[in-house]
C-alpha cells in the first residue's frame, strides 16, 4: 500500500498489467526513455524492454492505427496520445476501425486496445493542451470511454480497461495528476466498468460529474452540508456505456440534479444525462436539471482559464437553484 498520485496510479497499473500479461505492450511518443512527458510510463522501459515499451515516431494516426493491427494479432496495446489536442486525429482510427473491427468481421477479429490521453484544462499550458474530447469519443459506437477521478479509480479502471476485450479510450484528468495522493493497494484488482461510483450519499440534491470536476464537486457537497443540504455525489467514471440506472435511482430519491462537466455545453455528455433524466425520470424531478459546463468557446489561453473552467461557485449556484425551485 502506498500513498500515490493519480499519474503514479496509472504507472502502477501499467506495470502490473505488463507483468501479468506478456501480450500487454505500451506505445507512444516519449513513453520509453523519458517515461512519458507526464511520467505515466516511468520505469516501464527498464522493466520490460524496448520491444514492449515502444517509442514511436511522431505520428498519432500511426499510434492508434498500429494498435489496431497489434490487437488483431492478439497483443494488448496500451497506446498513449501525448496531449488531448492531438487525440482528435485518432478519431479516424477509433471511429472508422477500432470501434468497428469486431462488428465488421462479425466477431472474427477484435480490438482489445486502450488509448490513453491526458485531458482537461487547468495547468496553464499552450494551446491545444486543455481539450475535453469526452463527447466526441463517447459518440463512437463499439468502444468504451473511461474517465477516472482519483488514484484508486485510475488504478482499478485502467486495469479493467486493459483486460477488456473491446477498445477503451482512457481519458486522464491532467489537473488531478499530482494534485493529491491516495492509498492505493497494488493488488491487481480491477474496478467495474460501465458503472457509476456514488462517492457521497445524500437526500436533497444529486451532483453528477466525472474527471477533474469531481474534486470541486466534492468540496461543494461539503459546503452544502454545512448549510444543512445533504448532496449525493456520483462519479460517472465510464462515460460510455453510461450507467444511467444509478443516476435515475438517485434522482428518484432527491428529485434534484446538477450535472457538472468542464467540457463545452453543446452536445456535452451532461446533455445526454439531462435528456435521459427527462425521458426516464421526469416524474421524479422537483426542479429542472441544471448543467454546469464550460461555455461554447475555444478553450482560451492561460490568462482566461479560470473564467472558462466551471468553479465551485457555479456548482453551488446551480445546486441552490434546484432547491429554490419550490
Amino acid at each position, binding site marked *: 500500500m502506498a500513498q500515490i498520485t493519480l499519474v503514479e496510479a496509472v504507472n502502477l497499473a501499467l506495470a502490473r498489467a505488463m507483468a501479468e500479461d506478456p501480450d500487454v505492450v505500451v506505445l507512444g511518443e516519449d513513453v520509453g526513455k523519458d517515461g512519458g512527458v507526464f511520467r505515466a510510463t516511468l520505469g516501464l522501459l527498464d522493466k520490460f524492454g524496448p520491444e514492449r515499451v515502444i517509442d514511436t515516431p511522431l505520428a498519432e494516426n500511426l499510434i492508434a*492505427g498500429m494498435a489496431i493491427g497489434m490487437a488483431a494479432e492478439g497483443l494488448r496495446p496500451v497506446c498513449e496520445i501525448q496531449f488531448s489536442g492531438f487525440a482528435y486525429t485518432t478519431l479516424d482510427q477509433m471511429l472508422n476501425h477500432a470501434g468497428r473491427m469486431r462488428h465488421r468481421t462479425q466477431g472474427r477479429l477484435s480490438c482489445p486496445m486502450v488509448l490513453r490521453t491526458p485531458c482537461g484544462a487547468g495547468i496553464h499550458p499552450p494551446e491545444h493542451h486543455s481539450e475535453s474530447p469526452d463527447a466526441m469519443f463517447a459518440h463512437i459506437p463499439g468502444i468504451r470511454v473511461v474517465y477516472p477521478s482519483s488514484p484508486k479509480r485510475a488504478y482499478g479502471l485502467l486495469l479493467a480497461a486493459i483486460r477488456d476485450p473491446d477498445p477503451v479510450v482512457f481519458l486522464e484528468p491532467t489537473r488531478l495528476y499530482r494534485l493529491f495522493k491516495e492509498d492505493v493497494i497494488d493488488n491487481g484488482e480491477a474496478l467495474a466498468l460501465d458503472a457509476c461510483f456514488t462517492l457521497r450519499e445524500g437526500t436533497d440534491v444529486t451532483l453528477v460529474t466525472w474527471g477533474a470536476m469531481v474534486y470541486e464537486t466534492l468540496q461543494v457537497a461539503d459546503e452544502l452540508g454545512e448549510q444543512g443540504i445533504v448532496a449525493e455525489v456520483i462519479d460517472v467514471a465510464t462515460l460510455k456505456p453510461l450507467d444511467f440506472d444509478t443516476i435515475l435511482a438517485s434522482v428518484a430519491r432527491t428529485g434534484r440534479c446538477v450535472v457538472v462537466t468542464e467540457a463545452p455545453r453543446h452536445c456535452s455528455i451532461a446533455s445526454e444525462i439531462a435528456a435521459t433524466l427527462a425521458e426516464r425520470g421526469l416524474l421524479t424531478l422537483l426542479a429542472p436539471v441544471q448543467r454546469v459546463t464550460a461555455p461554447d468557446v475555444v478553450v482560451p489561453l492561460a490568462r482566461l482559464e479560470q473564467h472558462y473552467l466551471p468553479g465551485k461557485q457555479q456548482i453551488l449556484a446551480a445546486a441552490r437553484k434546484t432547491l429554490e425551485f419550490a
Partner: protein
Amino acid sequence: MTVAARFEILYSQFLDAHGKVVAPLPAFAADTAALIPLYQAMVLMRTYDAKAIALQRTGQIGTYASILGKEAVEAGVGAAMQKDDVLLCTYRENGVQIMRGVTMRELLVYWGGDERGSNYSAARRDFPVCITIASQCLHAVGVAYAIKLRRQPRAAVCMLGDGASSKGDFYESINAAGTWRLPVVFVLTNNQWAISVPRKTQSAAQTLAQKALAAGFEGVQVDGNDVVAVHHAMREALVKARSGGGPALIEAVTYRLADHTTADDASRYRAPEELAEAWKRDPVLRLRNYLSEAGVWNRALEEELLRQSAEQVQAAAQAYLDTPPPPAGQMFDHLYATLPAAFAVQRAAVTAAAGEST
C-alpha cells in the same frame, strides 16, 4: 558539396506485352507449366469480376469495384503468400482474397451489404476489405510489429493504390516499418487512376516506389501486367521480410481497365484512346500467348478452363442469391464482446419494429 545520398529504382519485366521473354526468367518460371496455376487463377478472378459487375447491374449487389486489368498483380501476390501470412488489402483485391481462400460467396455477401461476408471461413487473420484509403497501412504496421515481437516466420502484406501513397497514413506507416525493420511488404498497385485523378497529378515523384527510400528501405517497380515479374518480386520481398530483413515496397505498374466503381463512368475523365492502348497490355492475354507459344496451353484447355471458371462463379453467385438477408438485430451483433444492458434495450426496439423475435 558532396553527395549525401543517391538512389536508383529498378524496374523489372520478364514477359513483354505480347508474351515474349525479354529477360532471363527467375527459377520458379523455368518450368513453364508451373505458371499454369497462375493463369488459371487470373482467368477465374476475371470471370468472377465480370459476374460481380453483372450482379450489380441487375441490382443484386451494391456498388462494386472491378479488378479488371490487374489480374497479374493479384495472382503474383496471392501465389507468393503463405497461409499464415496476413493480408491487409483495399476493396480492389478480391482476386488475392480468392486465392487466400476467401470464398466468392463471402465476397458477394459483402458487396451485397451484409457484414457476415467479412467473417471469412478461411484466412481467418486476414483483415477485412478496407474502404478508407491507406488506413490498412497503419494496421499492417501493427500486425507486423506483433509478428516481429513474437519472432514468427510470418509477414504482413499490405496492398494499396497510387492514390493511397499520397496519404499521411501511408507515410506514417512506411516510416514506422522502416525504423523498426518490420516484416511487412507494401504492394502498391499503380493503376494510373485514383477515381478521376491521373498518376501525374497524384505526385511529382518520378516513381512511387522511391517513397520507400524516404522511409529507409528498398522500393522496386515491376510491370504489373507481367505475372512473372510481380510474383518474383513478391517472393524475394517475403523471404527477406520473414527472415528479419525488414520491409519492402513493390510498385506494380498496371492500368485500371474498368471504371473506378460500378457507379463511376470513366469516360467522363479519360480518353478512350488511352483505354484502347491499355487493353493491348492485357495481362491475361499476354500470359496465354506465352503459355501457348511454349506449348503448354491450347484451345481445348482454354475452353475447359473457361467452362470450369464459369461454373464455379455461377455456383458462388447462386449461393449468394440463396443466402437469406440478415436479421435486423444483426446490427447489434458483435458490437462489443458482450452487449451492454443499455444497448439491449435498443436492440429489442429495433427487432420489434422489424417484426422479428429477439
